[in-house]
């Protein structure tokens, strides 16, 4: 039964049960504690507390949701406590090292602006139950996406991921300004809010630019503390408004009164976009973790990426069930572990447990629940700058040709237009409303559609005939090196393809009539098709033993097939009459 399940899992989730041998990590010397190492208790606790503090800043997103939903005091405390519980569970799910769930690295979770926009959109359409229901749906989408990550790369390349992040940053900044100035429905401004937010934002910015060490690392937290003090001085801070009417117990199990679940396809599009954006961020963060822990890192390990995305998907489902916003992996925590050189996975578990325990302490929730709006606004506006610029960096990380320039330019403009000409877009047919009424969705849908259209005809192909008796290795190296440079293909991928083709040709020898190699390339794929007269290549799943390799040429051929299977991202061999074909695929 178990073996049948594994066979089914292998078919359904090829990237999880990848037959390629997992690389052994080469520990970078600068790390104090690598992913598999356990630091002593003092280092463990101190590191975990730092991560808890950094993550705490992102509790602002559920707070905004609670403020917009108009929750009462007790419900607000419950929301904050449950958000702490959910972020603890999410962190553990993301860090787990198991066959299907978790990336296996210190990759803590946080709340994110990515889910805030869609959640506020759902809040308008159907209240909190719709937010929580659709968050669950978004988590399910991520769980479904996880096994097919490789195939989705063409759909969501890094520049489109960057565009999504940049649009999120813009939306965040707009919301931040509203909170900073206390802009009301009548478009009036609250002067005391302006003073508080200006002081808070100035503290955050100054510490970030001129600070060093911990003040720089915790600039947002310190800036928020400055905002709390200024709010208290100006009468904006009111802890009593956040206190439960019947006092504050030391420990309290959060209640689930505000939780309900609704589903509505009208708000599905923003949550699907959020699921994709969240997936891309997990991929970026987990890749960063992999690089951090492997001196010889060459390319992402998709098993770990898929586990991370599945973990984030389950975490999102849990957050929806627990009545809070969707989570995401947190780049700042990975930056923190890089800065401190402590990347032990066990710290992730400690962070998770700490948050689960904090969820039972209502005083911690009150501290956050009483956060004045101008302080929230300052933190939002500050983080928006980083979100926006990191999106821009992702957009420009690869060279932008005419095709990409149009995809990004048109889509970014459309996203802005959705907000500028909101009234005009409301005239669109009802069926298009889920797309055109939300800047994030409109921008993303535009980008994905234009990208697919503009990818038409970009695949390039070249064929090489290998004659009997010629030096085939030189011909293969010349062809792939020259074409690789023309195609601007990554050298590492070209080198793997050269090895693959040379290894195939070595095994097939010098067949009558020679052989033919067809190489085709687009931005994401390099494919080789090698045709020759003879029997198809054996591609064993198991490595031949040392004795087999040494005993005969057949053992060497089995090793060749095994090496080809391991080095290519996909491989297939077949016979066509008295000829044979071998197909090698390399992700680019």
């Amino acid at each position, binding site marked *: 039964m178990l073996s049948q399940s594994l066979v089914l899992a292998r078919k359904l989730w090829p990237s999880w049960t990848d037959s390629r041998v997992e690389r052994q990590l080469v520990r970078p010397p600068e790390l104090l504690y690598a992913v598999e190492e356990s630091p002593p208790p003092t280092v463990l606790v101190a590191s975990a507390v730092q991560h808890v503090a950094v993550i705490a800043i992102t509790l602002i997103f559920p707070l905004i949701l609670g403020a917009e939903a108009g929750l009462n005091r007790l419900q607000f405390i419950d929301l904050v406590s449950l958000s702490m519980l959910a972020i603890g569970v999410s962190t553990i799910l993301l860090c787990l090292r198991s066959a299907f769930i978790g990336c296996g690295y210190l990759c803590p979770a946080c709340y994110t602006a990515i889910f805030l926009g869609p959640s506020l959109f759902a809040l308008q359409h159907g209240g909190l139950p719709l937010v929580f229901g659709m968050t669950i749906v978004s988590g399910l989408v991520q769980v479904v996406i996880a096994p097919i990550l490789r195939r989705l790369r063409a759909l969501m390349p890094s520049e489109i991921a960057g565009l999504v992040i940049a649009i999120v940053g813009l939306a965040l900044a707009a919301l931040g300004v509203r909170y900073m100035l206390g802009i009301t429905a009548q478009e009036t401004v609250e002067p005391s809010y302006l003073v508080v937010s200006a002081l808070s934002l100035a503290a955050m910015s100054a510490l970030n630019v001129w600070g060093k060490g911990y003040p720089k690392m915790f600039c947002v937290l310190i800036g928020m503390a400055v905002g709390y003090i200024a709010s208290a001085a100006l009468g904006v801070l009111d802890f009593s408004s956040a206190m439960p009417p019947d006092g504050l117990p030391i420990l309290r199990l959060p209640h689930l009164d505000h939780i309900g679940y609704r589903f509505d396809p009208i708000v599905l599009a923003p949550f699907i976009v959020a699921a994709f954006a969240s997936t891309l961020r997990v991929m970026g963060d987990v890749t960063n973790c992999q690089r951090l822990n492997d001196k010889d890192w060459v390319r992402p390990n998709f098993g770990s990426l898929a586990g991370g995305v599945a973990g984030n998907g389950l975490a999102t489902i849990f957050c929806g069930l627990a009545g809070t916003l969707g989570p995401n992996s947190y780049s700042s925590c990975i930056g923190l572990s890089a800065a401190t050189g402590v990347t032990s996975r066990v710290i992730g578990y400690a962070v998770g447990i700490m948050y689960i325990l904090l969820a039972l302490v209502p005083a911690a929730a009150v501290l956050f629940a009483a956060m004045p709006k101008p302080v929230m606004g300052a933190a939002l506006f500050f983080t928006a700058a980083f979100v926006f610029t990191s999106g821009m960096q992702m957009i420009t990380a690869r060279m932008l040709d005419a095709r990409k320039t149009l995809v990004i330019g048109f889509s970014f403009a459309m996203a802005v237009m959705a907000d500028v000409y909101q009234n005009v877009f409301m005239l669109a047919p009802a069926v298009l409303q889920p797309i055109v009424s939300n800047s994030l969705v409109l921008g993303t849908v535009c980008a994905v559609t234009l990208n697919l259209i503009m990818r038409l005809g970009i695949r390039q192909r070249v064929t090489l005939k290998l004659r009997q008796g010629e030096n085939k290795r030189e011909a293969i190296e010349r062809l792939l090196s020259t074409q690789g440079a023309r195609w601007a293909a990554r050298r590492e991928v070209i080198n793997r393809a050269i090895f693959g083709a*040379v290894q195939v040709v070595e*095994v097939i020898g010098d067949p009558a009539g020679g052989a033919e190699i067809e190489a085709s390339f687009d931005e994401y794929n390099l494919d080789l098709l090698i045709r020759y007269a003879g029997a198809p290549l054996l591609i064993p799943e198991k490595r031949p033993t040392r004795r087999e390799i040494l005993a005969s040429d057949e053992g060497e051929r089995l090793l060749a097939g095994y090496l080809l299977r391991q080095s290519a991202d996909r491989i297939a061999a077949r016979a066509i009459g008295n000829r044979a074909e071998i197909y090698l695929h390399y992700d680019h």
Partner: protein
Amino acid sequence: MRNDGLSITHSHVGPVCVVTLDGRIDSTNADDLMVHLKGLIDAGEKNVLVDLGAVLYLTSAAFRVLLVATDEAERNAARLALCSVIGQVRELFEMGGLVDAFTILGSREEALAQLD
């Protein structure tokens, strides 16, 4: 010696005979490598260190030669170790599950320090 894509040179550092390979190793030059390594072992070298730092890739034929040479060294009460197994070459060793089939000793300096 440079022959068909592979340069093979050797020098002595103390008691260690360092064989430096530069290029790619496949079926067209694997026999040359075998002859070279076997010649050193037959000549009585007891510590042979093969530096793969400048090798671009190696195919199954090369792996077989290295395995045969390792066995040959053991039969002659000698040691054959590899060093500078990095980048794509290291990946190939790992992909082939052959890391444990050889004595792999880090950089040339580290290897010499261990073999000295």
